[in-house]
């Protein structure tokens, strides 16, 4: 099996699964229960929070556990909007956000908020001048995706953070679901107030995530019914999943220290080879993109067809964001980048992680070339 759909989800690390099983068996009690079993679970939860805080170089009180990326983005964006609407109802985001952010903003728009969707250039980047121009006295939030889930484009978060340091009343949320373990994002130094992270994109389990909320930043709670998670997210904690996530985060950060070069190598190889194939356009920016995502379009071939024929050969890729893949039609992101309807509706995404090797990439490419030929034969 050659799995190149790591931006949709990753295979959990073996150690992560071991942790999950052990915790589920031994520490299944509700952390809020008063008895000693509850106490143990609570203590373990506290240790996991501390460990995650250390890895992210933040304080334990700034780590809120969620069910994943979608929830993190929802809580951050709506939570800030509703909590601070008395100060202003203007929010800034980009036109290339993940659906969970994009649709949160559309919802807020229907609730009387005013949203600026910053456009992007051919590389998928917003312009800093646009951002500065769109800031108003009633702006309360800037929310941007760090690494784009379809193209791998990296937004200039550091520079944006610098600009926003001049506007201390504007909160800065970063969706870092795709970036963790692949592209560095120092939360403190870059002036980030909220940051969304998901466990299953870093070889953890589905149903777990982290929302970093800087101390002193208040958000309205979307869930009510308990005092868990610093009152920001009520509900019995998924202790086993959370501890497993702490493990996953530790392991992927370790891998990223040791093996990031290998991801670049694979990407370099794939892009160069793909580029030489007739009818293929590379949509991923060479200069401003993450080491693990490659997006390209194949002229005249429906991506679904190509995916299924690769599937038969045990190679797994995707069209684009898994969250929007069932809608069909053109990619909103690629359209926003100005790549045109044709390219936007024929895009394929390869996404790697630390388990992938250059050998696999070579094999996948060979299979891809063969299948392209087959499809073209049929179509003729």
């Amino acid at each position: 099996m050659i799995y190149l759909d790591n931006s949709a989800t990753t295979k959990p690390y073996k150690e992560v699964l071991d942790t999950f099983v052990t915790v589920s068996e031994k520490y299944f009690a509700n952390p809020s229960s008063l008895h000693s079993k509850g106490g143990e679970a609570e203590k373990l939860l506290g240790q996991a929070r501390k460990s995650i805080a250390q890895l992210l170089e933040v304080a334990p009180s700034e780590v809120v556990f969620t069910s994943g990326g979608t929830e993190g983005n929802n809580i951050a964006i709506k939570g800030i909007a509703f909590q601070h609407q008395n100060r202003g109802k203007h929010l800034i985001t980009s036109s290339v956000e993940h659906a969970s952010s994009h649709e949160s903003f559309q919802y807020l728009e229907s609730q009387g908020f005013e949203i600026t969707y910053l456009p992007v250039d051919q590389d998928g980047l917003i312009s800093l001048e646009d951002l500065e121009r769109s800031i108003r006295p009633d702006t309360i939030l800037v929310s941007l995706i760090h690494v784009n889930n379809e193209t791998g484009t990296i937004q200039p978060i550091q520079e944006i953070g610098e600009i926003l340091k001049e506007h201390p009343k504007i909160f800065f949320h970063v969706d870092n679901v795709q970036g963790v373990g692949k592209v560095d994002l120092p939360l403190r130094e870059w002036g980030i107030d909220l940051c969304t992270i998901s466990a299953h994109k870093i070889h953890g389990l589905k149903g777990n995530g982290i929302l970093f909320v800087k101390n002193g930043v208040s958000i309205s709670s979307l869930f009510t019914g308990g005092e868990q998670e610093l009152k920001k997210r009520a509900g019995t904690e998924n202790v086993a999943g959370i501890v497993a996530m702490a493990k996953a985060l530790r392991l992927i950060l370790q891998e990223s220290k040791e093996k990031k070069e290998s991801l670049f190598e694979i990407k370099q190889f794939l892009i160069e080879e793909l580029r030489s194939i007739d009818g293929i356009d590379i949509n991923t920016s060479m200069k401003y993109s993450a080491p693990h995502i490659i997006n390209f379009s194949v002229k005249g071939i429906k991506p679904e067809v190509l995916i299924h024929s690769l599937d038969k050969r045990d190679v797994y890729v995707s069209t684009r964001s898994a969250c929007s893949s069932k809608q069909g039609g053109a990619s909103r992101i690629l359209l926003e980048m100005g790549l045109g309807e044709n390219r936007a509706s024929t895009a394929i995404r390869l996404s790697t992680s630390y388990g992938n090797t250059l050998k696999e990439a070579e094999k996948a490419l060979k299979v891809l070339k063969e299948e392209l030929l087959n499809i073209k034969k049929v179509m003729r």
Partner: protein
Amino acid sequence: MIYDHLVVRYGELSLKGKNRRHFESQLFETVKRKLRPFQGLNISKHFDRIVIELNGQSYEPIVKSLQDIFGIHSISLAVRSENDLEAIQKAALIALNEAIEGKKTFKVTGKRSLKSFPVNSMQLNQEVGGYLLRNTEGLTVDVHNPDVNVKVEVKDTGTYISSKSFEGAGGLPIGVGGKAMLMLSGGIDSPVAGYLTMKRGVRIEGVHFHSPPFTSERAKQKVVDLTQELTRYSGGKIKLHVVPFTKIQQTIKDKIPSSYSMTIMRRVMLRITERLAENNHAMAIANGENLGQVASQTMHSMYAINEVTNMPILRPVITMDKLEIMNLSHKIGTYEISIRPYEDCCTIFLPSAPKTKPKREKAIRYEKNIENLEELIEEAVNEVETLILEEGKSADETFDDLL
């Protein structure tokens, strides 16, 4: 990053004449122990400083660790150059550029400790300052109030140039001031008192009174976690003595009028702590008492309670406002633990109306109601459970594999 050295300067201890060597070696040991988790550092002791060669490690986490250590006045990022004017000038320019971003004025503070170096301190200022002015744009010299101070120190081991400094924790190196027993309830004040006690170079051991089943395992864990947090500043391990207190509290409830139960309880706690101090060679007791208006915090209370011991009682937060204590608590990282909502033994049998002005004579009289008090104290002291907390290690390692 061009900085390859950290220069750690001592605080008050440069003043303390004869003890100086002892102080310095204590501090050096603490620094070495604290930086053990960082690999590849070279740490060396010099006449009035400790020099850390970074060997490619990033400085931020190291500086942060060093800021926990008492006895350090400042930590400077430095680059080392050969003892050669031209090399010094070049290095100074790099150091200035690192620090100058967005700022406008600088000065050069030259210091020639190596007297054989041909350029003296005054000349150093001029030569280096002139070079910097010629090779930068829009900067001016301000000798009184510069945005950036470029320090140039010529030593026999090379010239150290620094432009960025971080404040140290101040105080005296841990271990030079004897030992005190810290009474830890689990509240906000006592860990801060512990921190401030250590700031004067005093080692601490924690004493906690535990009354199961009236106080929970979580209340005890809270104190363990607080002690663990304090190990950041202790230069190593801290012992925590957990005193079984249930029997004594029940006896007090039975035999003492409720308005005096709190006063008597505190007197007994103090006696037990004194006993533990003697057993563990400590010469003082520290606590988080703070002059105020509630129950145990009035001067009348203190007068009625303090009587039972001759040992010095250190009360570092005695005159602070609650807000000052909370700020410190945030700073040292104990606040979040302290506010966990578990009852400790001080609140569990709290009478509805404790005397805010207890009388010492009455306390003495009532206390006589407990005929076997000495026995009870003896028993509690004998059954103390002692835990040893160490920085960077959780006392309970059962979870380490999982994480």
